[in-house]
C-alpha cells in the first residue's frame, strides 16, 4: 500500500533528557524519522524536553514544542495541533510509555489521533512481563521459568520451587532499572523491593537465571503486508547477566551456526508477526552454548537502543524505514537509501565485523562499585568496523579515549593471582583488560573460559592478540618483516602500539611500514557485501589491498 492519504500530520514524542540506557540514539532515531515523514509531505509535530537534541532544531520538524513530557502538556499540544497520528516507537521507552498512557487515558480517542505502527495491544503484550509470557507460550516460543510477583511473599514461594540463582526483572522499565541477580535471600529481598518500586505498574518478573548462556539480539522489521525481515543480529561478548548495553557486542553473531542463526531469526519474525507491529522491533534471545535450546528474553516493540548500532553496522536506516511503514508504505515500496537501486525489502549482508564497546562513567566518579550486571550503567559506546574481529576490537578500544593503546589498564600488572581471578569472575568495566592480563600471565583460554563463560571463540582471538604482542616485544627495526607488520596491522596493532612494545620510535616504524607499501585501504559499508553498486555508502579503514 502506498502512503495513507488520511495521515497528513504526525506527532513524534522524543525521549527527554539523556539518561543511562536512553541517550543520543533516540535523537538519532527521532531526527531520522522526522526527515523520513516530511520527505513524504507529512507535517511533523515534535515534542521533547531536551534542548540538546537535533530533533528540536526548528528545521527538523514543522512544529517543535519544548515541553515537559507529561500527559497534561502532551494533551495541550494535541488539542492545539490536532495531529492525525502519533508515532510511539521512536522516542525510546519514554516515548512509548507516554503514548501508551495517552491511549489508556482516552486522550488519543478524544482528539481522534491514531496510534501508528505499533498497536496499543502489542505495547501491552511486549511490556507487561506476564502478558508477554502468555503470548510467547501461545505461539510456541520458549521463555525461562518465571513468576510475576507483586510482593515479596510471592517471590519467596517461587524461590522455594526453583532455588537460586534467580533474576529480578521489573516491568515497564528500561536498562534493567531496579533489577538484579539474586544468589541468596538477602539479594532477593533487596531486588524484589527495588524492582517493585521502580516498575510503572508495581510488578516484577522473577526468573531462573540463565548462567553462562549466550545473549543474542535481532533487529527485525515488518510492514502492513506482513512482510517481515531481519536487519541485523548481534551477539554479546559477555554471557547472560551483563546487560546488552554494558556488554561488548559484535555484529553479526560470530559463534552461531546457520541452523542456530535461522532458528533465532525465525523465532524473532514469528514474534513480530504475533505482536502485529508495523515498523521496527528488537528481540532479545538467549541460546544454550551446549545445545540448540533457546529462550526469548525480551521484546522491545519499538526502535531500540540497539537500532542505532544495527543501523550503522549495516547501513540500513531502521528509523527511516519504520516511519515510512507507519504511514502506510510497504517494504517493497521503499528505496534502499544506500544503493538507490534496490529496495528496503531485503536483509543486509555484512562483509566486515562490527564491534561495540560501552563507555562507563566510573573513571569520572571514582566509584568503588564498577560491577556491570543486569542494570545498565554505561553512558555511551563506541563502534568500530574492520575485516577481522581483532582489528575491530582494537580499533574500538582506541576509540574509547581511555588511553589504552597498549591494552593495559592502570594497576593491572600489580594484581595478585587471587585478585586477578576475582576480577575475572565478577564482570566490571575493566574485565576485558583483566582478560588480556590473565592471558599475558599465561592463563590458558580454557581456564579463562571456565571462570568467565565468555565463548572460547572470543577468548582465543584475544589470546592471538596477546601472542602477537609477545612476538613483537623487543623486536629491532630490522626484524619487523613485512609479514610481521602485515599481521600486526591486520590485527589492529597501531604503529604507536608497536612502538610501545618494541621501544622503537613510532615514526621509524611508520616509515618502514610504508616502505613495504603497507597502508590502510578504505572499504564501503554498502548493505549488500558488494553485490550492488552503492550511491551513498560510508567507509571504514582496514589493512586490505584495494581502496574504494
Amino acid at each position, binding site marked *: 500500500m502506498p502512503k495513507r492519504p488520511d495521515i497528513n500530520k504526525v506527532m513524534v514524542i522524543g525521549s527527554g533528557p539523556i539518561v543511562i540506557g536512553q541517550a543520543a540514539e533516540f535523537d538519532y532515531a527521532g531526527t531520522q524519522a522526522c526527515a523520513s515523514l516530511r520527505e513524504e509531505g507529512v507535517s511533523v509535530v515534535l515534542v521533547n524536553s531536551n534542548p540538546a537534541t537535533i530533533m528540536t532544531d526548528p528545521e527538523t520538524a514543522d512544529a517543535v514544542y519544548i515541553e515537559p513530557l507529561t500527559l497534561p502538556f502532551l494533551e495541550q499540544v494535541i488539542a492545539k495541533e490536532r495531529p492525525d497520528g502519533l508515532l510511539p516507537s521512536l522516542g525510546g521507552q519514554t516515548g512509548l510509555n507516554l503514548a501508551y498512557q495517552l491511549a489508556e487515558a482516552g486522550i488519543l480517542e478524544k482528539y481522534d489521533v491514531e496510534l501508528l505502527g505499533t498497536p496499543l495491544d502489542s505495547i501491552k503484550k511486549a511490556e507487561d512481563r506476564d502478558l508477554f509470557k502468555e503470548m510467547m507460550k501461545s505461539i510456541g516460543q520458549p521463555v525461562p521459568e518465571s513468576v510475576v510477583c507483586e510482593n515479596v511473599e510471592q517471590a519467596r514461594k517461587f524461590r522455594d520451587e526453583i532455588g537460586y540463582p534467580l533474576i529480578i526483572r521489573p516491568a515497564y522499565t528500561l536498562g534493567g532499572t531496579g533489577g538484579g541477580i539474586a544468589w541468596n535471600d538477602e539479594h532477593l529481598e533487596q531486588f524484589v523491593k527495588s524492582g517493585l518500586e521502580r516498575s510503572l505498574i508495581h510488578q516484577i518478573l522473577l526468573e531462573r537465571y540463565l548462567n553462562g548462556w549466550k545473549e543474542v539480539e535481532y533487529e527485525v522489521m515488518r510492514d502492513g503486508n506482513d512482510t517481515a525481515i531481519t536487519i541485523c543480529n548481534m551477539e554479546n561478548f559477555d554471557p547472560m547477566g551483563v546487560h546488552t548495553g554494558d556488554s561488548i557486542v559484535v555484529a553479526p553473531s560470530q559463534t552461531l551456526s*546457520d541452523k542456530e542463526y535461522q532458528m533465532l531469526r525465525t523465532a524473532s519474525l514469528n514474534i513480530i508477526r504475533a505482536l502485529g507491529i508495523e515498523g521496527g522491533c528488537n528481540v532479545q534471545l538467549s541460546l544454550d552454548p551446549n545445545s540448540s535450546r533457546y529462550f526469548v528474553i525480551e521484546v522491545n516493540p519499538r526502535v531500540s537502543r540497539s537500532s542505532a548500532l544495527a543501523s550503522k553496522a549495516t547501513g540500513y536506516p531502521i528509523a527511516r524505514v519504520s516511519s515510512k511503514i507507519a504511514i502506510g508504505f510497504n517494504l517493497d515500496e521503499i528505496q534502499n537509501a544506500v544503493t538507490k537501486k534496490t529496495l528496503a525489502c531485503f536483509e543486509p549482508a555484512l562483509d566486515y565485523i562490527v564491534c561495540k564497546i560501552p563507555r562507563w562513567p566510573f573513571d569520572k566518579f571514582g566509584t568503588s562499585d564498577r560491577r556491570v550486571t543486569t542494570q545498565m550503567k554505561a553512558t555511551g559506546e563506541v563502534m568500530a568496523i574492520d575485516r577481522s574481529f581483532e582489528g575491530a576490537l582494537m580499533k574500538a578500544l582506541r576509540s574509547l579515549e581511555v588511553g589504552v593503546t597498549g591494552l593495559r589498564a592502570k594497576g593491572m600488572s600489580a594484581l595478585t593471582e587471587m585478585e586477578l581471578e576475582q576480577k575475572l569472575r565478577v564482570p566490571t568495566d575493566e574485565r576485558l583488560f583483566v582478560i588480556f592480563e590473565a592471558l599475558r600471565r599465561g592463563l590458558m583460554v580454557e581456564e579463562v573460559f571456565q571462570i568467565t563463560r565468555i565463548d572460547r571463540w572470543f577468548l582465543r582471538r584475544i589470546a592471538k592478540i596477546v601472542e602477537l604482542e609477545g612476538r613483537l616485544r623487543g623486536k629491532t627495526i630490522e626484524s619487523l618483516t613485512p609479514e610481521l607488520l602485515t599481521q600486526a596491522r591486520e590485527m589492529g596493532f597501531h604503529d604507536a602500539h608497536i612502538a610501545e612494545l618494541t621501544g622503537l620510535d613510532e615514526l621509524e616504524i611508520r616509515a618502514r611500514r610504508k616502505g613495504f607499501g603497507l597502508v590502510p585501504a578504505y572499504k564501503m559499508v554498502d548493505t549488500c557485501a558488494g553485490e550492488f553498486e552503492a550511491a551513498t555508502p560510508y567507509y571504514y579503514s582496514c589493512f586490505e589491498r584495494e581502496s574504494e
Partner: protein
Amino acid sequence: MNTMQARLILIDGTVYEGNSVGFAGTSSGEVVFNTSMTGYQEILTDPSYAGQLVALTYPLIGNYGVSARDVESSGPKVAGFIVREMSETPSNYASQGSGDDYLTENQIVGIQGIDVRALVLKLRDAGVMLGMITTQHDAPTGLQILKNLPEYDAGTYAREVSTQTAYFWADNARSETIPPRSAKPRVVVLDYGTKYNILRELLERGLEVVVLPCGATKDEIAAHKPDGIMLANGPGDPRSLEAEVEVIRQLMSENPKQPMFGICLGHQLLGRALGGETYKLKFGHRGANHPVKDLTTGKVHITSQNHGYALQADSLPQGVEVTHVNLNDNTVEGLRHLERPVFSVQYHPEASPGPKDNAYLFDRFAELVKAGK
C-alpha cells in the same frame, strides 16, 4: 596457520596472492561469490557449486567448525574455496573439526588472505569468469592452463554429481534398497544435484522419497509409480541437459495430472520443457537475503539463492504463468502451469543455508501429491 602460499588467477589476468587453506594443489572453475554470513558447510556441500570456485564475502569463515549435521550431500562439492580468513579455532558445541582440516580431508583446494571484497567488485563489474587456485603454478603458467580449459557453461556437472544409482531416503540417510510402496504417497526426486534438505523436507511431510539418477528415463521413473515428481537443484547451464529436459516433457505429456515441483536447476529445466528459454546472469544470485515477491499472493519473502542462469519471462508459452519475481532485478523466480499441478521456483525453499520462510512451498507440493493419490 598454513603459511604455504597460494594464488588465485583469473582468466582476465588478475592475480591475488594469498595463503593456502585446505588441500594444497591446483583447481580451476568458474569464480562466483556468495553473500551468506553463515552456512559455509552447507555451501561447500551443495552440489550446485560443482565446477565453481566459491568466494564467501563474509570475512570470518569456520567460526563454528564443521559437523556431520550440516552436510547437504555426501561431502564438499565446490571446485575450490576462497575466504578472507579461515578460523583456526572454531567454537560451537556441535563442531567436530575445523574448516581447514575438513577441506584437506576432502581434497578441496582453497585460498585465504586475499582481498575478497576486491574480487567480488571485480566479478560484479566484469561478470563471473574462469579462475584457478594454485599452490603450484606461477601466474603465467596458470593463465596458460586456464586459457585451454573449456567454458564452464559447456560442462554437464549435473550428470557428474547426480547419484549413479537409485536410492531411498530414510531417516536422514541414503538406503540402497527401495522398499515396496507403503500407504504413504511416494515422490520421485530427479537428482540433478539435490541438497539433502529437499529430501528431508519431503520426508517430514509424510512422503516416501525415492531418488533417481539424473539420466533416468520416463519408464524407469514410471516403474516407481510416483504420486509426485520433484525436479531437484543442481549445477550448470540448463542448456547442456537437453536429454533431461526431454524426459520432463515426456513425463508431462504422459501424465498431465502428475504433480511436479521444480527447484533451481529443476525450475529451469521445467521451464525449458514447457518451451521457455534460459540465459546466463552476469554474476548470478548467491546469498541468503534475496527478496522475492509471490505475485499470486502479493507477499514478499526473503529467500536463499544460488543460481547463475534464469528463465526468460517473455519466452514462456501461454498457459504458463510467472508466479514469483526477484525484487532486486525483476528476474523470474517462479512459475506455474495454469492447468496442471506443476510449479517451480528458482530459489531454495529448503534453505540450508538461509531463511526458512519458504517452506510453505513444500506444504503446497505435499498437498498436491496427497490430493492426487
